[in-house]
Structure formats: structure tokens, C-alpha cells
């Protein structure tokens, strides 16, 4: 949250607005989706949400997306979908209405967006008020020593809905889980492959076929070979990401080969 700017001084406001904009750019991860981001941007307009300028908001959002792109920040798809929609909305709001056009007017769309923002803000506010209530175990407390005086004991079996649903889920997906549970012996994990590859790559000065790195005893049985290939490939990707090796594949489905990265010291 950027600090609220001092209304007295334009200069301060300028700086903090800029800071807020920068914070936005850096902190895309902090947003719970495009609507949340729009709500945040709308606060810079400092008006009642019912009077928010959706046009200005659309422009702010679009410039945010541009800046993020310039900084090569990868935006999740839904942010881009929203950007496209806002660009469309902007054009609707700016151009005179086309009588041929069937769809809802720009004003209708803008009004709905304003409603969504207001509703989201209202729910935020409600959530905060809810969490601030007197809460059991924090503000109010139940009897610390419930009593059980009588000697009549009756066993009652119980289960929660979650138990029930999980039991059912477990049953219905038994087959999906099978490879994990039953066939453990034929699985090479990526960690194992990685542990194996790390000392080996020091020797890979020249391009070498990935398949030559499969561990002993894992090359013949198809199931084992498949698992070992997948794990080794994943391990090699990790190593490539860490800058330790280079990978090469001359065409689709061609063998993959690797070598130690030359700059590695």
C-alpha cells in the first residue's frame, strides 16, 4: 500500500503518485487479479467509486500494462484479457454510438464495471469488518473445562463431510494414483536424476546424447526407461536453467544432446 499523499502539496502528491505507480509495476504478484488492480488504480482518482471515470481508469490500466511490458514483466493472461476488453470499452466510450451495433452501449459496460468495483470494494470492507469482530478464541472464550460428570459412556462414531468426500475421491481416482503408489520401484525421481547428473556433467565437454546418461539397469525395461528418460531430461533442464549445461535438438523428435557450458569456471 502506498502512503496516502499529503493533499496540501502537489509536489509530494506527484512523488507519491509516481512511487505508487512504481510499486504497482514491481508488485504485480501482490494483486488478486485484474479487478483488484483496477480497484487499486481507481483509488488514485480519489472519488466515490460511483463517480469514478471509467475512461480514465481504462487508460491507467492500459498504461500499466504497457509499462509492465516495457519492463518485460510477464502478466498473467487474465490481465491481458482485461486490457483488451478495456481497450474495446475505451473505443466504445470515445466513438459516437453506431446505430447498427447490437451490443450494449459503452456507458452500460462502464456502469457495470463501476458496479463490479464498488461491489468488490464493499466485500473487502465487509471482510475487514468481519475479521475485526469479537472472535472466539481471541476476544471471547468458551468454557475451558467442559465437564463430563456422568458415568454413562456411549461411543458415537463420527466423520466429517470432508472425510466423506475425500474417501469418495480416493476411491474414484484409485487408478490415477496407482503409478505413484504401486509402481514406486520403476520410478526415477528428478532429484535422483539430478544428484546423478551433477557430478557427470563436468565430463561433458562435447555434445553427448542424453540417452547415454541413463543410469545402469534403467535402459531396457520400457517402463523404467521412460521414467529414467523423463527424470533425466527434467534434471538436465534444471541444469540448463542454472547455466551449467547447454542443450541441443536438431529437429523435432531428434535425440537431445548436451554439453558442459564453456563459460563455466
Amino acid at each position, binding site marked *: 500500500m502506498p502512503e496516502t499523499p499529503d493533499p496540501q502539496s502537489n509536489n509530494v502528491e506527484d512523488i507519491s503518485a509516481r512511487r505508487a505507480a512504481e510499486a504497482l509495476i514491481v508488485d504485480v504478484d501482490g494483486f488478486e487479479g485484474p479487478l483488484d488492480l483496477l480497484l487499486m488504480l481507481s483509488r488514485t482518482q480519489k472519488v466515490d467509486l460511483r463517480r469514478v471515470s471509467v475512461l480514465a481508469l481504462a487508460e491507467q490500466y492500459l498504461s500499466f500494462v504497457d509499462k509492465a511490458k516495457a519492463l518485460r514483466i510477464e502478466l498473467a493472461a487474465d490481465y491481458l484479457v482485461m486490457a483488451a476488453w478495456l481497450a474495446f470499452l475505451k473505443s466504445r466510450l470515445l466513438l459516437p454510438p453506431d446505430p447498427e451495433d447490437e451490443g450494449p452501449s459503452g456507458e452500460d459496460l462502464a456502469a457495470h464495471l463501476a458496479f*463490479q468495483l464498488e461491489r*468488490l470494494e464493499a466485500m473487502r470492507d*465487509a*471482510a475487514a469488518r468481519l475479521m475485526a469482530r469479537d472472535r*472466539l478464541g481471541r*476476544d*471471547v472464550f468458551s468454557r475451558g473445562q467442559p*465437564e463430563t460428570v456422568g458415568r454413562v459412556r456411549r461411543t458415537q462414531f463420527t466423520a466429517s463431510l470432508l472425510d466423506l468426500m475425500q474417501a469418495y475421491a480416493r476411491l474414484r481416482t484409485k487408478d490415477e494414483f496407482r503409478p505413484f503408489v504401486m509402481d514406486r520401484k520403476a520410478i526415477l525421481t528428478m532429484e535422483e536424476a539430478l544428484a546423478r547428473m551433477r557430478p557427470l556433467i563436468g565430463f561433458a565437454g562435447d555434445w553427448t546424447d542424453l540417452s547415454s546418461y541413463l543410469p545402469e539397469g534403467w535402459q531396457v525395461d520400457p517402463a523404467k526407461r521412460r521414467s529414467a528418460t523423463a527424470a533425466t531430461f527434467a534434471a538436465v533442464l534444471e541444469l540448463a536453467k542454472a547455466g551449467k549445461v547447454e542443450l541441443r535438438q536438431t529437429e523435432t523428435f531428434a535425440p537431445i544432446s548436451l554439453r558442459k557450458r564453456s563459460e563455466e569456471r
Partner: protein
Amino acid sequence: MSNTPQDVDNELDPSLFEAPPMGEQERMVEAVLFASAEPVTIKELTARLPHGSEPAVALVHLEKRYEGRGVRLTRIGDAFAFRTAPDMSFLMRRETVETRKLSRAAIETLAIIAYHQPVTRAEIEEIRGVGVSRGTIDQLLEMEWIRIGRRRMTPGRPVTFVVTEGFLDHFSLESARDLPGLKELRAAGLLDNRPPPEAQTAEPEGRSEGDLFEDGDEA
């Protein structure tokens, strides 16, 4: 406190025994509620107290007796429990239980369920403008703050979510009607399920406001 216990299941058995005097009934309700950490329903009180007792009346007396004390009688849905007075919380550091910290997404999802119930997952997502992440609903179910309600009678018959008595108990609410700001939100139209303008042709979904807090479903 409107249930009169007489008409619950005693028709068969014309009072062979006198019900205990109200003062005694009050003591009994007091003892039962004191002995339990969980809220006790009027129905259960009726079943446990001697034949012919009127726990609902006893509860009114009891509530008055504990007014302003360090411990109070609180109502949670159809049930009652003793709880410490909120202004005593500063003494309770030792009893305070660390509640699992809820994510912002979980808190908002919970609020949306409470204020819009019964509400489908798609509606929650529509309000938040973002998918409900895996595990959020799961976590709220596990905490027993929400439960599955009736399916919505719309295409796909999606399940709905509603809040539980445990939720009411945790947040010191007598009923979901007492949620803070509920009336204002409703008056401002912010609890309406207003479809986006594109969907003008779509069906109006048959959800009036009255749908929000249906309680005729104890069937």
C-alpha cells in the same frame, strides 16, 4: 426464542410428572450450558431437561441474570452457549488460540459466502474478478466455517456454499442476518447478482433478494 417446547414431542405423554419450577429449570439450563464448550440447541435442551420443561423461557431468565457479568449467555443460530464478555479479552492471553492465518483470498471468499449466501463458486469468482484458488474453499470447509448448501436450479446445477453455525460462533453472530453492514449493502444494491450487460438475453436466474437468506429449509 420462540420455540415453545411443549409441542415438540410430548403429545403422547400427558404430563404425568409436573415440570420442575422455573427457577430449577433455569439452574438446569445453566448447568448444561456451563458444562459444554459447544453451543447447545433448544431442541437438545428440551430433550435433556425433565419432561414439560420450557428451556426457551428459562433461557430468557438466564440471559437477564448474566447481563453485564464476566460471562454472558450468547445465542448462535438455534443454539446457546456461555462465552466470556469481550471486554475481558485482555485477561485471556493464556487461553488465546492461534488461529491459522487466513490468506486474503480466503478471507474475501468467506465474506462473499457470508453476505451472498447461498452462492456458487462461479459467483464468487465473478465478484472477486479472479479464480478461487484451489484449496481456499477446501480450507474454509475444513475449518467448518462454510458448508455445502442446496444446488442452484440453473444449468449445470452448481453447488452453493453457505456459512455454518461454527462461523456464527466464531464471529459472535446470532445469525447471518446480523452480519455487519448487511442492510446497508443490500440497500445499496451491492448484494444483487447483477449480470453483465452482454448477458442481456440470458435468463434472469430467478434469484430475488429473498433467496439470500432462506431459512425455510430446515425440512
